[in-house]
């Protein structure tokens, strides 16, 4: 349903034009209808950039995004705006995702105001009641301002806004990384239930491997701006050395060393400097190989 083809994003420093960051480098990604793709990777590996790029919130430097067959990058701003209700984002920091000078109700109803043509005839008050109930907020909380709610309640409000117009695709960018474990459980359950109801696709960005395993129908592992392994059940049977490393880091926390340097943008494998089983051929980054239920970028696998 949504597909990114050869997506790349380079950030260029304002001061020094030579200072280039390859945040995302030639990534193919696809999320089907009612499917959840869990995207995991270290902080700074480009997973959030990739998520935002899929919604064309950050225009890609290269590559194209196809949503239901239409290219998002080639659309005019007006056309894109008319389609925006179909894809939504739930961000990592709920406290900065809502306008601090609006009540929670005003924020939740914003999609109806923006897409007023499409939603003509729908009663805002009734819609608000419906959404508040769906996400488990108290009616009186809707009249409050964001600073009066806790992190978990804010995240519920953000979810209410995201699902307001029954979107076809939602990017959840580490929606629970700032929340307590008990609150995390209820937010994840909420997301799962609403997603099932609406039947939308979801890109679930996280660095928690256990969450990825629970949420993802498929899992993609990202390192240094590139997806190195992707498929069904890859966390149970990791093939790429980096996936093996992060899976073992959960089983045995003490055994891990952080990946010190990524060789972003170079022609070599991104995992080259930290890989336990590197060989001379790894100086040329391998192509993505398809093995049926998974895709891997590594010379060792064949």
């Amino acid at each position: 349903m949504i597909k990114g083809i050869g997506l790349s994003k380079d950030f260029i420093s304002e001061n020094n034009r030579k200072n280039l960051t390859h945040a995302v480098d030639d990534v193919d990604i696809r999320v089907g209808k009612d499917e959840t793709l869990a995207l995991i990777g270290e902080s700074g590996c480009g997973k959030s950039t990739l998520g935002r790029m899929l919604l064309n919130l950050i225009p890609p430097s290269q590559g194209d995004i196809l949503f239901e067959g239409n290219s998002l990058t080639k659309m005019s701003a007006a056309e894109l705006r008319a389609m925006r209700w179909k894809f939504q984002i739930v961000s990592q920091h709920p406290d900065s995702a809502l306008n601090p000078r609006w009540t929670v109700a005003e924020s939740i109803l914003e999609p109806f105001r923006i897409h007023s043509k499409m939603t003509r005839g729908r009663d805002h008050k009734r819609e608000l009641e419906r959404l508040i109930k769906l996400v488990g907020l108290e009616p009186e909380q809707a009249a409050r301002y964001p600073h009066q709610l806790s992190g978990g309640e804010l995240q519920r409000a953000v979810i209410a806004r995201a699902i307001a117009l029954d979107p076809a695709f939602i990017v959840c960018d580490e929606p629970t990384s700032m929340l307590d474990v008990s609150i995390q459980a209820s937010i994840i359950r909420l997301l799962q239930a609403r997603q099932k109801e609406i039947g939308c696709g979801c890109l679930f960005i996280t660095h928690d491997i256990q969450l990825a395993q629970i949420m993802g129908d498929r899992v993609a592992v990202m390192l240094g701006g590139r997806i190195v392994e992707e498929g069904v059940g890859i966390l149970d049977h990791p093939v790429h050395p980096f996936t093996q490393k992060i899976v073992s880091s959960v089983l045995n926390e003490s055994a891990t060393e952080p990946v010190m340097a990524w060789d972003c943008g170079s022609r070599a494998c991104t995992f080259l400097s930290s890989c336990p089983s590197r060989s001379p051929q790894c100086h040329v980054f391998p192509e993505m190989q398809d093995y049926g239920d998974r895709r891997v970028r590594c010379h060792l696998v064949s």
Partner: protein
Amino acid sequence: MTAIIDVNQLSVHFPLATTTVKAVDMVDLSVEARETLAIIGESGSGKSVLGTAILGLFPPTCTVSGSITYEGTDLLTLSDKELQSVRGLKIAWVPQNPASALNPSMRVGEQIGEPLSRHTGWGKERIYLKVLDLLQKFRVLPPEERFAAYPHSFSGGMLQRALVAMGVSALPEIIIADEPTKGIDVINKGSISAVFRTVRDQGITLIIITHDLSFAHDLADRIVVMYDGRIIEIADSDLFFKNPLHPYSAGLLLSLPENGLHPIPGKTRDTGECDTGCRFRFRCSDARERCNDEPPLILHESGACVRCWNYD
């Protein structure tokens, strides 16, 4: 084992116009020398306030009662000046949110050396070498380059390691760390664990405030669970994760992704909303009439202490 810190009937209350928020309410806790203690609980349970209280750091509006005994003196009776010879030198603090804990316009190395220049009277050169040594030890690499860098160029995990280096620099007896793994990804969390293990192996008493249960399990000897300003369970770490006693503790463990992500039903009530009885009774599936009276900390046969009538 001897207690290094003895917290006795400590209460930290915040009087508001209509209610009083009891962030920490009648807490008794003794921390043993050389142990690693993890204080867990959800946001707002009072764990950070308890941590800062041990350092004698209080927000200006609160009222404090009880005592915190360290080396025979009650820290709460000391003046600010006297406390300064304890803070950083005897008891160090590793704050939450490393990104805002450091001065953005000061080189990281100089900040790590600050406790040394304050408490030891060493010369600049000696402090520099010591800081390089610390950076090396806590893997903030390469040390020379990192010494001269500013905080913005550090990653979150690296900043956290630098902050721990700062905490240990003057060789304190106790380190209190507030949420050291918050916002740090799983892959870098291993290195934070390793850093704290190094600290522990130096014989420093560690108090870790966290809601990261796997991190607590990995490091701690004992677990203290707080709920709504109260300690509701104290247990040995292995025992706690095998067999949590309090219904809230059991609920916390069940809400972990690996245990099936079962949320605890109900909502946290605003602190101060209920003053009598068990604070958890509104969310507890076992709640009975008796729970309208607050249970004391009951010694369980396993050696753990739990504040629940189920174990009377």
